[in-house]
């Protein structure tokens, strides 16, 4: 048992993780703008459809052109992710492919075709189809993109909270037992709502930023003001919803991934009536000495808030890193929490039991089993079901491996939440000036609008960093650590593809940004009316 997994090339795992992170982060630069702009340009085209005014037609077409440039990069970076589960995480793909493959296939059949079919009508159909069909195509493009987000987030949520499945020792994989549990998992619902509303914020920030640029330059002011009004409303609604759904997401995490929550909060020793850390000083480059207990230096907390958010009870018990490692506290269902060492023992028992079960099955196929052996096989099968819950822990060498890298989770979470709050304030102020004051002359808002756009992307990426770094060391929570899920490819191969992706995506990103800037500088084209 002890020598299993020691032979997986550690560098190959790191490069596979780095490549997935790189491609996912790049992909997520383009997707939120697609999702957000889809709503905004849909509203603008609806205005055109209702008024038939050339102003709204030009406005909608201008934003659609920018959407198109960004959309192409989203598509280009997305194809890699679809196949990367197989190319770099082949063991993962077999171990849970029976469950995980379904949402990806549904995404293709239901969402991608809708998106790609109607985006063509949207771009090329202005003079070829009726205004009603064109409007429908614009909205269906956005709906297709949003449905796509739904299914990929179902898949991602399943990695965070694997439900609706059971392990089959005969096929050596997990198999789906309830599609409804997978597709409508509470984690998926929370994640979808939070992610999509945060994407709308990016769309709104982009619209406001570009419009602020025009106001600063005193060009296309009417379009800029109307765009800011729509962007501001979408942004304010989205940022309020993102705060609300973020609370739901955090509550889900508290219930299903308490170690992630403890890392996000740098909560070493938990307890009742826990305060929420507003800020603390943690070395961003080193894992803190959580085993020593106590709390991070210079910590400022909001009393009882963490307990309230995590348990919906101001005096509720929130476990810290050490509680989760050592167990012994009482779980909400009344059971006593196991220590990670105990989970490792159960996981190893599952692995060894599975090994023996497979040997007996092989013997059964070859020569048949004695009565005692058949009895042993059945016992093993029963024990496996009991121990499989902690199967993944059997691959851990030490309990410290169960702790994610705390500083990244801690700071990324605070950046996301802090900026999220700032966006609520910003959109409220922008709307106030747009409706009550002379926004065209309020230069500081123009500057703020431009400055907040990159911060929007930072907040959005930070959210994903919290979600994915907080899940470590698991590829699938409690079921499979990352190093068991990789493909059998030498690290040099993955390193080469990593740098090809880096160079390719960075170059294409530079081209995209330059094209967007030129398009924005050029401004909307006036149609014949």
């Amino acid at each position, binding site marked *: 048992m002890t020598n299993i997994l020691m032979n997986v090339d550690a560098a190959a795992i790191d490069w596979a993780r780095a490549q997935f992170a790189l491609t996912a982060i790049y992909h997520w630069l383009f997707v939120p703008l697609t999702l957000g702009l889809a709503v905004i340009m849909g509203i603008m085209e609806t205005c055109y459809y209702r008024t038939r005014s050339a102003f709204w037609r030009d406005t909608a077409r201008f934003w659609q052109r920018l959407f198109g440039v960004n959309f192409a990069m989203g598509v280009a970076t997305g194809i890699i992710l679809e196949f990367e589960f197989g190319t770099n995480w082949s063991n*993962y793909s077999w171990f849970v*492919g029976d469950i995980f493959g379904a949402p990806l296939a549904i995404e293709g059949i239901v969402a991608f075709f809708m998106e790609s079919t109607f985006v063509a009508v949207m771009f090329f159909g202005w003079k070829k189809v009726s205004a009603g069909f064109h409007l429908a195509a614009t909205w269906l493009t956005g709906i297709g993109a949003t449905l796509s987000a739904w299914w990929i987030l179902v898949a991602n949520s399943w990695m965070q909270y694997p439900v609706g499945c059971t392990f089959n020792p005969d096929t*050596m994989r997990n198999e789906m037992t309830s599609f409804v549990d997978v597709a409508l998992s509470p984690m998926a619902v929370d994640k979808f709502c939070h992610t999509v509303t945060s994407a709308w914020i990016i769309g709104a920030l982009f619209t406001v930023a570009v419009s602020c640029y025009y106001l600063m330059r005193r060009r296309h002011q009417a379009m800029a003001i109307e765009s800011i009004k729509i962007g501001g409303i979408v942004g304010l609604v989205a940022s309020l919803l993102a705060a609300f759904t973020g609370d739901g997401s955090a509550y889900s995490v508290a219930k299903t991934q308490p170690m992630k929550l403890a890392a996000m909060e740098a909560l070493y020793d938990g307890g009742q009536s826990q305060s929420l850390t507003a800020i603390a000083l943690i070395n961003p480059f080193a894992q803190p000495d959580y085993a020593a207990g106590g709390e991070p230096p210079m910590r400022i907390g909001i009393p009882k808030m963490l307990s309230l958010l995590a348990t919906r009870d101001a005096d509720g018990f929130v476990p810290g890193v050490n509680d989760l490692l050592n167990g012994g506290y009482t779980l909400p269902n009344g059971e006593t929490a196991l220590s990670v060492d105990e989970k490792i023992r159960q996981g190893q028992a599952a692995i060894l039991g*599975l090994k023996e079960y497979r040997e007996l099955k092989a013997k059964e196929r070859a020569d048949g089993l004695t009565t005692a052996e058949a009895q042993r096989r059945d016992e093993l099968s029963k024990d496996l079901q009991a121990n499989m819950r902690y199967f993944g822990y059997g*691959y851990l060498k030490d309990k410290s491996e169960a702790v994610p890298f705390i500083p990244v989770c801690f700071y990324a979470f605070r950046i996301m939440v802090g900026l999220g709050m700032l966006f609520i304030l910003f959109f409220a102020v922008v709307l106030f000036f747009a409706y009550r004051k002379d926004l065209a002359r309020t230069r500081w808002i123009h500057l703020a609008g431009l400055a907040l756009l990159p911060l929007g992307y930072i907040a959005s990426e930070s959210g994903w960093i919290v979600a994915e770094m907080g899940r470590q060391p698991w590829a699938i929570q409690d079921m499979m650590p990352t190093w068991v899920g990789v493909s059998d490819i030498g690290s040099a191969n993955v390193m080469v593809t990593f740098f090809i992706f880096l160079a390719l995506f960075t170059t294409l990103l530079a081209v995209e940004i330059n094209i967007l800037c030129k398009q924005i500088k050029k401004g909307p084209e006036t149609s014949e009316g």
Partner: protein
Amino acid sequence: MSYEFLQQYWWFLVSLLGAILVFLLFVQGGNSLLFSVGQTDEERRLLVNSTGRKWEFTFTTLVTFGGAFFASFPLFYSTSFGGAYWLWMIILFSFVLQAVSYEFQNKLGNFLGTRTFQWFLVINGIVGPLLLGGAVATFFNGSNFIVEKNNLVTGPTPIISSWANASHGLDALLDPWNLVLAFAVFFLARVLGLLYFINNVNDEAIRSRSRRQLVTASAPFVLLFVAFLLRTLLKSGFAADPATGVISMEPMKYLNNLVTMWYVAAALVVGIVLVLVGIVRTIVSKTYIKGIWPTGIGVVITVCSLLLCAGWNDTAYYPSTADLQSSLTIANSCSSEFTLRTMAIVSIFIPFVLAYIFYAWHSIDKKKIDKKEIAQDEAY
């Protein structure tokens, strides 16, 4: 619906998707001829805008093909993509280049220049069909991999699928018969691209140039395809014992499959005839522009029949030359009965998807593309 039926049904769906993907490679085939069919900047722009109306369908079909394979035959997905790493990665890189090339090439601010992105389209147009053809050929000729599920609990590493050599898929291109199909698919994509241009682009110079090129693309395609087909039908194939799952070599397995599955053989003949009808009529008649339809439908039927021949009738569709017993069959690589049944329900959506694709396609293509249209701001 029994488990066996669901397995066969999903192999049919995956084969159909693969067949539609090969048809849609007309986008790549057309792009590979960008600089020979399009002689001026304006003509090239016309061609780019012509395939540019359709590239998303090819791209989406490729992605859905991957997703459907993952959901229905996860062991293929994990073994092939994780093992033949470089083969798939190069295909994917070429599609990444394609995805941005339409949108970026003629936009103000494209500091890489129009030509760069046109060459990206040419690269994807050559590499995509060539390597996809090579990958499909391994369904008949085998690949170098080993699957050992016990590795998860006993192996020196926990990884169950491994490639038996360091080339990670590029070894497929060392087999001359894989290359024969690779080049057959490459020339087929060109044939389809040319037929598509003839149909879709309302420009005399491009149409007459495409007709000339059609002869030079069709001849090698027919030659290579017939050679591959005959050799495949006559060679030993990878048979699976339905009772034990043991894989063995069976003389003329694929010919036997067609004899046993006469309906697949009939479909294959119909498909091949349709392919030839479309090509020959276009070459013979100077006014006939609808060759893409019989040839396209013929390609779908032919490729689907060949893939059914590779997987149905107890055949190992992804054979291993490194360890025969590691070969993948429909039965040993598919998802559970529950997942296949769930996905079968989802597949009810497919006719609706095809219906709206057809409607949208028809709406956009009512008028053939011409030089006047690309002067408008909606063009790439």
